[in-house]
Every structure is written in structure tokens, then in C-alpha cells.
């Protein structure tokens, strides 16, 4: 039976892991992810899920164990945050290149230094080029829905790529809200049986994984990996539609909120999209034509959908919760500009860095920014929201 329960983002993803019945879950604690694995460890201890829970000594080992288990043919999940993801980095690339369908919840948090345990997207942006699919979640419900879909996407036989499910640290991970959980059997039949690209435990056809690969073949192997990423949009769309049929919640690559007639569109990732939507409701009441474009799929980045959606609008304000040091803009803004390249009479694209280290962003700040842009008819090339100058 489906039920609607009050869950934090961490708990919601723990339930998604439980419903996916992974063979192996690898855990190492880090704030703000810790409660996710606490919850999942409870499920294992109470016999509610028959998963081998592997407790490791670091995140580097966590991803290594995940790679080992997945290459043996297991369905594998793990979760981390911030420095933990940074420590995994080496193996994160390997998981993707070996085409292992691992699912990882990344509870987004700032990177040191200075030390900060609160939410921003700096950690996720370090995963941009790793070859993992990246989904972002606006709320706990979407975190659960993304995580369920992630298992089906990752092990799709035309794909075999690992998936990161991003959710904002504390803002989502530690805030309880109503979440509709699928019935366990329903979730199991939606996700379907686990498929592996190969198995080290198949003794009849022994294989070597991760061998040395020099000037003669490395390039070709990376090209083949790229091809898998090119196939990802089709699979993500198909899984999303199927999930939509089952639950009524279909998200797509991007979500448009009052975008079609908007003069100004805010573009954002994660929970801030919810804040921006609330601001847009209030702006619309004042008669201001403002909308929000929420990006759910960050890798592969939906360039075509975004170009088609944004090419007609006048002003774009891209909200970035991370800095790409030395780049002209924040990481999300760079992608948006890239999507708009070649458009005739392109919109003015402004970039606003906000919320680093968990600095709050309020609907009031977004409203104020919208009013300023529309009144002054200019956007900032590189602005900041909520920063003391």
C-alpha cells in the first residue's frame, strides 16, 4: 500500500534504497548524509531488507568497495557529502568508466576551506566531468522519486552508467515534509531485476577489468564511454515517463514554471527552485512576468530543451550555488550560456552566486532581484545574493 509519511530528505532516500533492495550498500558517515545511512542501517538490522551493509574506513574505500561489488554483478548504493565525495574522486571516475550501475545519494554541502557543514553545490560541481548521470531534487519527494528512478536508469541494458542523486544538505536532508512512498512490491516491479554489464563471479567466462590502456586504446575507450552518455537522455526520459504513469509525478529534464510568457526567467538547481517558485507566485500577483526554470538533470545537460525554452525570453538570471574559480561565471551559468550559443538575438544572461556554505536565500531576495532587473532592464554579469559587500 502506498503511504504518505513525514520524512526528511535523508529518510526519503533511505526508503528508496530499501525499496530498491540493493545487494550491497557501502556506508561511511559524513554530515549531512549520516542520518541516511543510520536509517538504512536500521532497516538492515531490523531485517526489513536483505542487504550486505559494508562499513568502510573512508569514502575512498566506500567507492572502491562499491566498484568491487558492482563489478561482481551486485546492485549497489552508497551516499556521501562534500569532503567525502572529494575523497572518493579518483574512484568516481573509475566507476563510470567501468560502466558500473552504482547509485549514490550526494547530500550537497560546501567544500573546505574554511570548514563548513552546510549546503551548497560545490561538491556536486566537482562531479561534473566524472561520467556519472546527475539528478537534482527540489524537495524530499523528488529526492525519493529520483532515487527510485536512478536504480532503473543506471542498470538499463542500453546504458550501464552510475547515477548521482543530489539533494541540498540540511535544507532537504534534515527537513521533514510529506512524502508519498510507493508500495514495496510496486517499487520492486517498477525498478525491475538488476542487470550488470558483466560479472567477475562468472567463472565460465573470466574477464579482466581495469587493465592498463595506453596510447593505442585509451582514446577509443573514452569515446565509447561518451557514447553511453549520449544514450542517457533517451533512457532518462523513458524511465521518467513510466514513473509519471505510475505515480502522476513526471519531472522531465527541466521543469518550467510560468516560463512561456516570462520576460525574466530564473534558472536554478535543487531546493532553491522551490523558493524561486514562491517568489514568482508573488511577483505574478504584482503583474510581473517572471518564471522559473528548474533543472532536474544536470548530467547529461539538456542543452536542446533549455535552448528551446529560453531563446525567446528577454532576461535570464542564473542562480549558482557554487563558484568555478577563474571562469567567467558559475558552473550552471556557463552551461546556460553554452545552450544559448548561436541563438539569434539571445537573451541577456545574468549570473548570481548565492547560498555558499548554507547562507540562506529567501523568496524576498529573489523578488527584490526580479524587480530590480525588470526596472533597470539590466542583469549583472557576475552578481551575488546575500553577500556583505
Amino acid at each position, binding site marked *: 500500500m502506498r503511504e504518505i509519511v513525514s520524512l526528511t530528505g535523508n529518510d526519503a532516500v533511505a526508503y528508496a534504497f530499501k525499496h530498491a533492495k540493493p545487494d550491497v550498500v557501502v556506508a561511511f558517515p559524513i554530515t549531512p548524509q549520516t542520518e541516511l545511512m543510520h536509517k538504512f542501517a536500521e532497516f538492515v538490522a531490523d531485517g526489513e531488507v536483505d542487504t550486505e551493509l559494508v562499513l568502510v574506513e573512508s569514502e575512498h574505500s566506500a567507492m572502491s568497495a562499491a566498484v568491487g561489488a558492482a563489478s561482481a554483478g551486485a546492485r549497489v548504493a552508497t551516499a556521501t557529502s562534500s569532503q567525502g565525495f572529494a575523497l572518493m574522486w579518483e574512484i568516481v571516475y573509475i566507476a563510470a568508466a567501468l560502466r558500473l550501475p552504482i547509485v549514490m545519494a550526494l547530500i550537497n554541502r560546501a567544500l573546505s576551506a574554511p570548514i563548513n557543514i552546510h549546503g551548497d553545490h560545490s561538491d556536486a560541481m566537482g562531479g561534473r566531468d566524472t561520467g556519472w548521470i546527475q539528478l537534482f531534487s527540489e524537495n524530499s519527494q523528488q529526492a525519493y522519486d529520483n532515487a527510485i528512478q536512478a536504480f532503473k536508469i543506471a542498470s538499463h541494458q542500453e546504458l550501464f552508467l552510475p547515477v548521482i542523486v543530489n539533494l541540498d544538505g540540511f535544507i532537504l536532508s534534515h527537513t521533514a515534509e510529506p512524502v508519498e512512498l510507493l508500495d514495496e512490491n510496486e517499487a520492486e516491479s517498477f525498478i525491475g531485476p538488476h542487470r550488470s554489464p558483466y560479472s567477475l563471479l562468472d567463472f565460465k567466462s573470466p574477464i579482466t*577489468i581495469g587493465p592498463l590502456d595506453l596510447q593505442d*586504446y585509451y582514446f*577509443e575507450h573514452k569515446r565509447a564511454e561518451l557514447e553511453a552518455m549520449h544514450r542517457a537522455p533517451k533512457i532518462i526520459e523513458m524511465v521518467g515517463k513510466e514513473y509519471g504513469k505510475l505515480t502522476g509525478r513526471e519531472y522531465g529534464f527541466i521543469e518550467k514554471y510560468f516560463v512561456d510568457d516570462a520576460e525574466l526567467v530564473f534558472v536554478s538547481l535543487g531546493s532553491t527552485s522551490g523558493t524561486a517558485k514562491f517568489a514568482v507566485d508573488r511577483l505574478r500577483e504584482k503583474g510581473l512576468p517572471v518564471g522559473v526554470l528548474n533543472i532536474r538533470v544536470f548530467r547529461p545537460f539538456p542543452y536542446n530543451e533549455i535552448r528551446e525554452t529560453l531563446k525567446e525570453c528577454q532576461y535570464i538570471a542564473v542562480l549558482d550555488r557554487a563558484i568555478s574559480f577563474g571562469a567567467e561565471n558559475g558552473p550552471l551559468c556557463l552551461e546556460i550560456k553554452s545552450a544559448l550559443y548561436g541563438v539569434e538575438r539571445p537573451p541577456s544572461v545574468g549570473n548570481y552566486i548565492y547560498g555558499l556554505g548554507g547562507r540562506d536565500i529567501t523568496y524576498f531576495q529573489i523578488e527584490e532581484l526580479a524587480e530590480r532587473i525588470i526596472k533597470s532592464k539590466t542583469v549583472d554579469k557576475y552578481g551575488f545574493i546575500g553577500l556583505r559587500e
Partner: protein
Amino acid sequence: MSEKSWKELAIGGIITEAGNSEKYIVGGWRTFRPIFIPENCIHCLFCWIYCPDSAIMVKGGKMVGFDYDHCKGCGICAYECPAKKKAIEMKFEEEFAKEVCEK
């Protein structure tokens, strides 16, 4: 071994054929080349035991020469050779440059 296009490769760069490292020619990494001097050889097979790349060729219990496709020229064989007059001598690979080029 003809080189394959990226479309023909096994998923994840796995190797599906066990024991195929023999097909990979690594002799080109050598700086020094071991030269066999048969008249000095006592066929103790120390070289065969010590060679880290299985590049000593043996027939009927006797040392017969080197597998230059896999020998990387480390010189361990020459060092370990216990014969009074060494049966293995290391020479600079460049002395054979012409021969290598022609090959």
C-alpha cells in the same frame, strides 16, 4: 593484432580473453638488450628462474635464448648468471637500432 574502432570494444574496457598479455609486445621499452653467449652457458637456468617477464626461452631443459618481444632489458639475468665467464651480456639497445628499424 589489428586495432579496433571504438564501436567494437567490450563495455567498460574489460578484457574478455584470459591470458592475452602475451600478445602485447613490450620489447620496445628496452634500454639494454641481453645477449646470449651459448659457449659460456652451464644451463643452470638461474636466468629462467629470476626473469620477471618469463622472457628466457628454454628447450629440452636448456637455455636457448631470449624472447625479445617481452624482455624489457632489466639485466637481472646477466647479474644472476653464475658461470665463470658470463653467458649473458647486456648491450645498449642503440647498437641494434639499425636492425630494429629494418624489422
